């Protein structure tokens, strides 16, 4: 509904909704004259009150960024054009034309306006996807004072999704200059049994949030909010047999992987591929760190490990291009000698190359090889997860496995890191980064078993070290890639109208690599201090607390 209104939901069983509304209207009639608003929508100069039939479609990113921030974005279709309405923590609305409820929108595709201003930064680089559409009919009544003056409007909205009715929404729309009366009406509504939520104790009028209605609409189509997360969300306990726990972790990763395939194939936004790659990397790390606990044959173990490596490699070219393109503007801004325009051919080259690589990636993800990998991996994990626990003997538990493998990974990081000196080659830092990733994954896989505070402390220390190592290696990789791309651009001179690549472009690319080299040196300079924090007395204590306090 229109933001800035006091909003309520009718609760309880569908059979009582009409009774609840009748009771509410009777209570209001005790304080005001309640008359139908036959004049249609009218609301003073402050904004329109919605009346009549409307269609609402909610939008959010695949990882529910708006919902998690307490925001709800609806597109409300009107006769001509429609409105984007944001409710929740902050509210805004914006008229849009040509908006479609069947397509996705990237932040940069949103038409300028107050809603776009509030959500663009939050969703970038993800796309807004249509979640669910409901139809609703709103009836408007006027609440009159003793002079017959309209002091507020009462809106009763009855939403339906398909054949199913959803709980009615009730709202009070304030008429300017009559806030006290609107609050009075809101208090009366709040006191009606079967209506919630109420205004706060001070009688403040709360905006009508779309949250509860969205939850109901999602339930009606068999979904729930936040049904996707980038976190490893396996249902494991410390006492469960280790093979079952590892299978549960890997099944959760497989779910995450498969959930992203469609978005990658449609190329909806770059983060589908990013998340898919994270799921693959985690899977590969889990097979390496914990795979022996699954009890797979050596042949199966090696085959799956090899197949997931293939999958990871398949996704690398597109992601590398995405990284360049996502950071392109920021890189271009850092140019000092060259002009931003010099990089236009480079960008065009990257985009053109990406189109080709996406096609190859899609072919891979539609291949029989990929389908078989998903099917066989799920079957193998399902078999282990469903296996009954061994009788007798001392079977390893998930808790024991977590302590053993996490401790081992930590010791490896500490040992390798301590051996690095200012003269060590870059490869030693790259190798340490891999060990840090393994430790990070081990921590994340078993997160439900750890004490939350101890877990956060260890992750905090590790993350700072990883950021530094990541910057060091990524800049190096980017430098090498830009050099390779420059060579490829020269080879593909035909792409520039048969002429050679402009000298300015190559110079600008050279300047980019110089900037990246500076960033790499900066990352190298802080490595020792970051590592000292992670592996020093405090870091050791944090890890000891984590492993000692296993639930």
């Amino acid at each position, binding site marked *: 509904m229109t933001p800035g209104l006091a909003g309520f939901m009718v609760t309880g069983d569908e059979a009582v909704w009409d009774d609840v509304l009748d009771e509410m209207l009777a209570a209001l009639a005790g304080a005001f004259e309640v008359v139908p608003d036959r*004049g249609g*929508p*009218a*609301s*003073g*100069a*402050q904004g*329109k009150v919605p009346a009549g039939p409307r269609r609402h479609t909610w939008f959010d990113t695949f990882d529910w960024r708006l919902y998690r921030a307490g925001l709800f974005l609806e597109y409300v279709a009107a006769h001509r054009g429609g409105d984007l309405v944001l409710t929740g923590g902050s509210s805004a609305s914006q008229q849009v034309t040509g908006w479609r409820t069947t397509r996705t929108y990237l932040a940069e595709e949103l038409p300028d306006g107050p809603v776009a201003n509030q959500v663009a930064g939050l969703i970038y680089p993800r796309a807004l996807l249509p979640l669910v559409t409901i139809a609703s009919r709103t009836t408007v009544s*006027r609440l009159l004072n003793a*002079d*017959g*003056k*309209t002091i507020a409007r009462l809106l009763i909205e009855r939403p339906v999704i398909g054949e199913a009715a959803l709980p009615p929404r009730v709202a009070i729309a304030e*008429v*300017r*200059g*009559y806030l006290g009366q609107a609050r009075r009406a809101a208090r009366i509504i709040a006191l009606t049994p079967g209506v919630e939520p109420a205004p706060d104790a001070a009688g403040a009028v709360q905006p009508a949030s779309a949250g509860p209605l969205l939850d109901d609409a999602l339930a009606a189509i068999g979904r729930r909010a936040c049904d996707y997360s980038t976190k490893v969300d396996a249902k494991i306990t410390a006492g469960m047999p280790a093979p079952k726990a590892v299978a549960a972790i890997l099944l959760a990763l497989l779910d995450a992987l498969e959930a992203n395939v469609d978005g990658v194939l449609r190329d909806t936004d770059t983060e589908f591929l990013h998340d898919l790659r994270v799921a693959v990397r985690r899977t590969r790390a889990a097979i390496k760190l914990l795979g022996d606990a699954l009890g797979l044959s050596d042949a199966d173990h090696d085959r799956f490990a090899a197949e997931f490596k293939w999958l990871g490699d398949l996704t690398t070219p597109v992601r590398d291009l995405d990284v360049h393109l996502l950071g392109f503007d920021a890189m271009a801004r850092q140019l000092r000698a060259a002009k931003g325009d010099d990089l236009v051919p480079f960008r065009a080259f990257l985009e053109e190359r990406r189109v080709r690589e996406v096609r190859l990636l899609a072919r891979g993800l539609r291949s029989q090889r990929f389908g078989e990998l998903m099917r066989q991996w799920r079957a193998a994990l399902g078999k282990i997860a469903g296996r009954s626990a061994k009788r007798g003997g001392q079977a390893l538990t998930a808790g024991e496995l977590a302590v053993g493998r996490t401790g081992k990974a930590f010791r490896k990081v500490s040992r390798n890191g301590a051996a690095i000196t200012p003269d060590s080659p870059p490869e030693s830092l790259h190798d340490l980064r891999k060990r840090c990733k393994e430790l990070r994954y081990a921590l994340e896989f078993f997160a439900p078993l750890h004490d939350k505070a101890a877990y956060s402390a260890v992750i905090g220390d590790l993350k700072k070290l990883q950021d530094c190592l990541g910057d060091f290696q990524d800049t190096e990789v980017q430098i090498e890639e830009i050099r390779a791309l420059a060579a490829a651009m020269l080879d593909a001179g035909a792409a520039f109208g048969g002429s050679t690549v402009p000298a300015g472009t190559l110079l600008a690319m050279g300047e980019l690599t110089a900037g990246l080299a500076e960033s790499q040196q900066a990352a190298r300079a802080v490595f020792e201090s970051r590592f000292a924090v992670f592996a020093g007395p405090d870091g050791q204590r944090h890890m000891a607390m984590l492993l000692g306090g296993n639930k």
Partner: protein
Amino acid sequence: MKIYATYNIKGGVGKTTTAVNLAYLAAADGLRTVLWDLDPQGAASFMFRVKPRVKGGGEAIIRGQRSLDGAIKGTDYDNLDLIPADFTYRNMDLLLDKGPEAKQMRKLSRLLAPLGEEYDAVFLDCPPSISLVSENVLHAADVIVVPLIPTTLSVRTLDQLTEFIAGFRGHRPEVLAFFSMVDRRKKLHREIVEELSAKRDGVARTPIPAAAVIENMSVERSPVAAFAPSSTVAKAYKALWAEVCELPA
């Protein structure tokens, strides 16, 4: 934001009914509109069922202690708000009569300026008489709409007003007079309307007839176009509003 004022030195010529109906029609055209009822009698406020009272009194607004924005009330109509009258407006002359003379004349202008962000059209319903209030209104307005009863004397009043405005330095409002309360059965009315409409610039082609429906406004407490949209008077006000809109910006 464009500021319209209905003004005549004489009372009872149809200033308030004109302000109420034109403001309603401006809002119906989609203009974000506010009507300021400057007459302490509060007839325009009454028409919109709003109590003729401003929190803190008119003095707080004129002195700038309270913003005009805080006094605004929503009417029952889309796009149309009202700043109600207050009985203390009877002393507005005394409140305006402070500070250097040049500034006294432009106090209302300054008070209205912030409304430009929120509104497209402001209507000022001015009390009768020549006073500091009416001078302020004439300086603030872009268009002065002058209701005239078809008599020889009222034509003289229009001349005096036009001369007075011609003496303004800088900003001068457009003046559009129209014949109000016209009784077609009276020969004198017919003659004056026909002669002046044809002969004189600044007189609207559309007269507003004397009609019971206008008197009913105070019973219905709403603009004619809202409760009798197909009446002759409603149509006449629409034609008059169209003429007002035609005036150069």
